[in-house]
């Protein structure tokens, strides 16, 4: 975890791609390269057994569109609504020579499949004394902003991060999405790959060829020395907004996007705090036992002497996600809330000014 280069370039052509397209590319090219890669889930093709078009959805968010026509129903498998059986099938197949990419349409559905994730897939390797490997990816959409209400808007990354044996990936742009998905597929452990549903159309230049982004290496969308801001997934957008506003005031923010929550590049965070002495963490999840306090705890333990001010966390409140737009907007962390926290931390002194 020494090379913290931001978006290392690979040679060759790039194209403007959305996150949706970048993930689709990653899947398609890995499926071409490796016949053991399969995709399964509800509506990953769509139209199974129906009289109308095949590939009617390609995933309800369109992420797997076009895979079934190219690779057939044997490798792009529409399933009944049975999430535990979906994850179980992926895990059992991963133990037996395939590299499945299973989709939970909404990651909120871990509730009905959590045992297969945390007691089965995550634990095989350890329980079996290292004698099995489980190369599988679970893709799921997370997050609010869609007015989808309490059961379709959660951020559950902190729960899976708590589980040893799982890797947890949360890309914040198309470049990372592609490189991290390729890594996730090639990785020999179960990987939870969380896609924020409001970000699918976000686009940037993405290399046409396949490349891996190693897990546990943060990226640095903005660099600075006055305050460290750690943000992940859609929260990176807000962190960049705040950093850019403050830059005009001559304040430089070190924005760290860990990209993978587990493993976490805590070295990058600790190194940054060593310079800035000030830390704000923004996370869309609920606060208790969440990622924000996780990172705060790590720094309070291992970076204490660098700190010049209290750590601040900006998270959702300790409530479910409300439906009404006004409430959901108030629920979600955003640039304004982050700005307030950053200014507070900048103003605070080591003596408690």
């Amino acid at each position, binding site marked *: 975890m020494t090379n913290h280069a931001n978006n290392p370039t690979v040679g060759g052509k790039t194209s403007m791609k959305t996150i949706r397209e970048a993930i689709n590319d990653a899947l398609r090219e890995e499926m071409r390269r490796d016949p053991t890669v399969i995709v399964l889930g509800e509506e990953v093709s769509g*139209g199974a057994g129906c009289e109308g078009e095949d590939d009617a959805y390609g995933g309800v968010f369109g992420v797997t569109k076009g895979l079934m026509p190219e690779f057939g129903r044997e490798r792009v498998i*529409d399933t009944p*609504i049975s999430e535990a059986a979906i994850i179980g099938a992926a895990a059992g197949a991963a133990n037996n020579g395939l590299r499945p990419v299973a989709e939970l349409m909404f990651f*909120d559905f871990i509730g009905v499949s959590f045992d297969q994730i945390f007691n089965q897939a995550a634990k095989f390797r350890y329980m079996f004394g290292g004698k099995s490997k489980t190369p599988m990816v679970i893709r799921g959409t997370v997050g609010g902003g869609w007015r989808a*209400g309490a*059961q379709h808007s959660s951020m559950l990354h902190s729960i899976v991060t708590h589980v040893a044996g799982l890797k947890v990936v949360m890309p914040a742009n198309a470049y990372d999405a592609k490189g991290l998905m390729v890594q996730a597929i090639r990785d020999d452990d179960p990987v939870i790959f969380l896609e924020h549903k409001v970000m699918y159309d976000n686009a940037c230049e993405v290399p046409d060829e396949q490349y891996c982004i190693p897990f546990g290496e943060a990226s640095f969308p903005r660099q600075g020395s006055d305050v460290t801001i750690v943000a992940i997934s859609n929260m990176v957008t807000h962190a960049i907004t705040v950093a850019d506003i403050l830059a005009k005031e001559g304040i430089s923010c070190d924005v760290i996007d860990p990209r993978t929550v587990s493993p976490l590049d805590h070295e990058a965070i600790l190194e940054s705090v060593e310079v800035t002495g000030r830390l704000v963490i923004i996370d869309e999840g609920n606060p208790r036992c969440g990622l924000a306090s996780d990172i705060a705890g790590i720094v309070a333990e291992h970076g204490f002497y660098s700190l010049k001010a209290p750590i601040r966390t900006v998270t959702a409140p300790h409530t479910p996600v409300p439906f009404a737009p006004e*409430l959901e907007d108030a629920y979600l962390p955003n640039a304004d809330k982050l700005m307030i926290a950053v200014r507070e931390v900048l103003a605070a002194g080591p003596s408690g000014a």
Partner: protein
Amino acid sequence: MPYSTEFLLSVYRTMKTIREFEERCVKEFEGGNVPGFTHVSNGQEAIAVAACIDLSDKDIIGSTHRGHGHCIAKGCDVGGMMKEIMGRSTGLCKGKGGSMHIADIDKGMLGANAIVGGGPPLVNGAALAAKTLGTKNVALSFNGDGSANQGTVFEAMNMAVVLKLPHIFVYENNGYAEGTAANYGVGSNSLTDRNAGFGMPAECVDGLDFFATYEALKIATERARNGGGPTAIEAMCVRFDGHFIGDPQLYRAKDEVKNARKNQDCIKIFRERVISEGWLKAAAMNAIDKEIMAEIETAVVDALAAPHPDPATDLMSDVYCSY
């Protein structure tokens, strides 16, 4: 005449209210007045009404993501519903739930459920409460051909049989789970055969025929009320709209919806039957139609004028009763 005029008018009014509510929902959604994503149940009205018309407010139903019809059939106020779906603070759930999480405990409506298969275990609980407290109330869950494949639903059926719970499992088989055919997702190709395997009476009825559906449900409900335990009723029906509003429905055959609206409309079928039997007059139903249009219009106008929730007071409240 096997049914009272009052009963038949009430059935008609409720079915038609659902239809107009749903059609208006689509319109308001397309007009940008309904946030989130919304699943409408037009085409399936006969089942909701047949299932709920004999239930009291103390009888409990558990619904699905496609729950508007069940709400209306169970007596929820369409004004409160419209406000909820539009996210207003005077909505049934203060705007915190929305279409996929609408509930009305006072009316015995235990909630829509955005988790497919989430409801039946809960409805077992309502049935268990009725049994334990000796109230003679019953509980009824709505299920789909898709949710039927969820483990929670199977578990709920088995537990209902084991504990002899007064729980009527209604399966609305509209042929689709999103864009997956029922005949693909249900391995056995027959929900009813599979349900019967769980050790309870199971029947398949024509869900477009209100009367057939009602008669089957009546027996099931009486059985439950009299301590006879659960029943599973599969009702074959048609979904007139997309899975969600805006669904391009590429998976459906050309003209399928058009033909269904023409030939498989449960409300048309009801009207034709009651007229041809001489049970109701067209004029009486037409008069109801007008009333309903006005009622829905009022519901929409009121909802659009209704206050939005206030984050300062509403965001952090209602998490716990006591903390």
